[in-house]
């Protein structure tokens, strides 16, 4: 490709990290003068692609499970590092009249009144934020009741689209998404306490063909500047 | 021409596009009108206009008191409401239906139980028994055409439009179909318009013929009359008259009821036709059947009328007739076509190269206004 020199590494990143990562990549370019190309997709898809020889040098997963899987299959060049933790938010469209609270009391009231229609989460079968959402709902003893009302997004972003568009009354999605400018205007949200689910570990690992730039970026992500950016996008330090 | 109310169908068409058309036609109940004319003269287009498949720019089509088209009133009855039976020039059978079903489509007014019986009766009429369950692609050209005829009849039409309906049928079958058509005319009593390029067919079947040329009707009348008394040389040519020449009118003699002509220096006598101007050129024609062959043994009465000596330069037989081309002036290469029964030809030992005498019967010499004749007229 004409716009990227040969030593521009391609890194694979979970789609949910897109907001933060785009800014970090820019900052990295300013600081080091080096370019990075990012292929965003769901962590699961990226894992499958890496298994099949995708030319990625670094993998940022929204879930530590996939990274471990790759390590087992000797696709990784170093040990994985959790560089950030993700958080869940309860989100709803501005026009939807729902009381938002960290214990989802408003939702359970709606459930009792039988007036909850649809509630969106990412698919707990494979999406990291979906798994966390399921855990949180289970811990709040809402899971069984809410199950018939669930609509499942392919990923957290789709779950957010469901609720932010008003098609679903509310949903549990990632904090980083909720901070996106477009959502800020159309939605309201509260952050769910991290103790309601296992940590949503944003793991990263260098892959077998990692070059110097990728290694540099791996370090950069653990640095202070990246940390600041990450925290602005709703991630916390591990 | 004011339309008479007795006419079962009356058509007046005027258009410039896609082809110029200026046609006025009428046809009575039970009358069979043959629409003849050269290939491309617009015959099919006229039928389409009657059937409602072509909408002429300006036009009136009236059928049995119904107004089918009147362009000024913006009235145009769609084809399916017109009750016409139409045989298409290229048959247009429904390829996905058996012969029987093709015909039954036009019988949909009858109850189901009768449809099959009626369809089979029609198939018998067109001599196609046993082919009920064939699909059109498994039929020969002539068989397809006859199915198309049966389908048109099945419609119980108010007017029957036949676009060269027998062109693909062999002569023997055709003769049978002619007979069926004649029977039908009596039983149906509807106007029928038959497009044909076969003048013999027209003569055989039609009460009147209308001659179409470049979108215009040149003449209508009984087939025999149009053939023997064409209004113009063009009509004569289109009626396949081979003996067509020009001459000068010399004298009209009322007493003897003769008109005298000068034809390439030769004096000719025709029957009295005073409508042609004296000392002007005119066209004239004679039908081969009005030419007498002089018998070698004993001269007959007609032999005195316009006698010529000539040499047979072409001869072929067809249908029991010997068709001869007789060169009566080797210098001017004037040839005259005559035909005689075969046995007469044989008895007179006619053959190419033989010298014979002929007489152009006065009664047969028909005069027309002058026009330049094409060289290729035989």
């Amino acid at each position: 490709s004409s716009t990227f020199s040969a030593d521009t590494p391609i890194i694979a990143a979970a789609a949910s990290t897109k907001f933060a990562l785009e800014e970090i990549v820019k900052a990295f370019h300013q600081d080091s003068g080096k370019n990075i190309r990012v292929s965003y997709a769901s962590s699961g898809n990226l894992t499958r692609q890496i298994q099949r020889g995708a030319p990625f040098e670094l993998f940022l997963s929204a879930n530590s499970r996939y990274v471990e899987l790759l390590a087992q299959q000797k696709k990784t060049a170093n040990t994985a590092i959790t560089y950030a933790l993700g958080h869940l938010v309860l989100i709803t469209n501005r026009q939807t009249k729902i009381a938002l609270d960290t214990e989802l009391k408003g939702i359970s009231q709606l459930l009792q009144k039988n007036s909850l229609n649809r509630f969106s989460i990412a698919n707990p079968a494979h999406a990291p934020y979906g798994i966390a959402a399921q855990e949180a709902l289970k811990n709040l003893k809402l899971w069984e009741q809410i199950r018939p009302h669930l609509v499942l997004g392919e990923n957290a972003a789709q779950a957010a689209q469901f609720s932010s568009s008003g098609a679903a009354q509310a949903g549990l999605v990632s904090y980083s998404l909720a901070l996106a400018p477009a959502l800020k205007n159309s939605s309201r949200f509260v952050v769910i306490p991290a103790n309601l689910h296992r940590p949503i570990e944003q793991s990263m690992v260098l892959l077998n063909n990692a070059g110097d730039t990728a290694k540099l970026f791996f370090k950069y992500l653990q640095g202070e500047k990246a940390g600041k950016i990450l925290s602005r996008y709703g991630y916390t330090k591990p | 021409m004011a339309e008479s109310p007795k006419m079962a169908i009356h058509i007046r068409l005027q258009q410039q596009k896609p082809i110029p058309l200026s046609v006025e036609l009428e046809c009575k109940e039970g009358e069979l009108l043959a629409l003849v004319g050269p290939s491309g003269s617009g015959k099919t287009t006229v039928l389409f206009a009657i059937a409602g498949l072509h909408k002429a720019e300006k036009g009136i089509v009236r059928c049995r008191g119904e107004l089918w088209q009147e362009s000024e009133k913006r009235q145009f009855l769609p084809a399916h409401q017109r009750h016409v039976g139409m045989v298409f020039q290229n048959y247009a059978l429904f390829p996905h239906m058996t012969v029987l079903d093709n015909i039954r489509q036009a019988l949909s007014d009858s109850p189901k139980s009768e449809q099959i019986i009626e369809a089979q009766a029609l198939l018998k009429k067109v001599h196609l028994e046993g082919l009920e369950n064939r699909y059109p692609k498994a039929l020969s050209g002539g068989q397809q055409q006859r199915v198309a005829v049966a389908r048109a009849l099945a419609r119980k039409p108010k007017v029957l439009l036949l676009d060269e309906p027998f062109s693909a049928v062999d002569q023997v079958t055709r003769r049978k179909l002619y007979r069926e058509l004649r029977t039908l005319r009596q039983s149906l009593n509807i106007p029928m318009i038959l497009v044909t390029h076969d003048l013999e067919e027209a003569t055989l079947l039609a009460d009147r013929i209308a001659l179409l040329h470049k979108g215009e009707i040149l003449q209508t009348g009984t087939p025999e009359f149009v053939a023997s008394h064409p209004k113009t040389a063009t009509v004569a040519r289109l009626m396949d008259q081979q003996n067509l020449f020009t001459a000068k009118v010399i004298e009209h003699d009322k007493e003897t009821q003769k008109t005298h002509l000068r034809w390439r220096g030769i004096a000719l006598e025709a029957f009295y036709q005073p409508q042609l101007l004296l000392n002007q050129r005119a066209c004239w024609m004679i039908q081969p059947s009005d030419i007498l062959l002089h018998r070698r043994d004993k001269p007959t009465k007609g032999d005195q009328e316009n006698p010529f000596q000539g040499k047979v330069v072409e001869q072929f037989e067809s249908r029991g007739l010997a068709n001869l081309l007789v060169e009566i002036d080797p210098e001017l290469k004037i040839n005259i076509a005559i035909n005689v029964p075969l046995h007469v030809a044989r008895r007179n030992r006619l053959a190419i190269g033989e010298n014979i005498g002929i007489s152009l019967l006065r009664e047969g010499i028909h005069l027309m206004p002058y026009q330049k004749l094409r060289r290729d007229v035989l």
Partner: protein
Amino acid sequence: MDWQALTLSIKLSLAALLFLLPIGIIFGRWLAYRQFFGKSLLQTLLTLPLVLPPTVLGYYMLVTFSPTSGLGAWLSSTFDTSLVFNFQGLLLASIIFNLPFAIQPMQRAFAAIPREIRDAAACCGMKPSRVFWKIELPLAWPGVVSAMVLSFAHTLGEFGIVLMVGGNIPGETQTIAISIYDRVQAFDEQSASIMSLSLLLFSILTISFTFWLSMRSEQKYG
């Protein structure tokens, strides 16, 4: 094997066909026989559902029909129905993204019927409706079947737009395609393969039977 999802998919495909068949035939026939200004443009507009990524199309549908939108609110207040997260929504989505496959082949099939055959039908006194049923439709049938098969297969396989509009609710909007996708995403490759094979087998049986039927009737007179 997720029988529920398979049943739903089949139901959805058949329901979509039920709508696409008349829509495709009416539009296809109309486009085949009518000439008018802007016809190319209209034909183009009918292919556009293909141009946008299904998920994106689904997203726009979601936004349009969600209860917070004007149209969605009106629908829910007037008909007490909603076109998201339920079967109706899936159906609408399936119909929209199949329009190009349904209309175009049917248009071509109707256009291929010679003018004179239709003229002859009119001269047989057949009303336009009868001409349609007895002549045009049977002659266009192979093209119609082809369009239907494509639409049927496409509905079975589509998941982007269906996921977006339907919300992946088991038993309600979780089609077999989504179910297979989920299994693959969950690294449950064995289930995914079993489901894929069942789906393929089912498709092979139904589609090849359809083709065979249509071919047989065509050979009779073709």
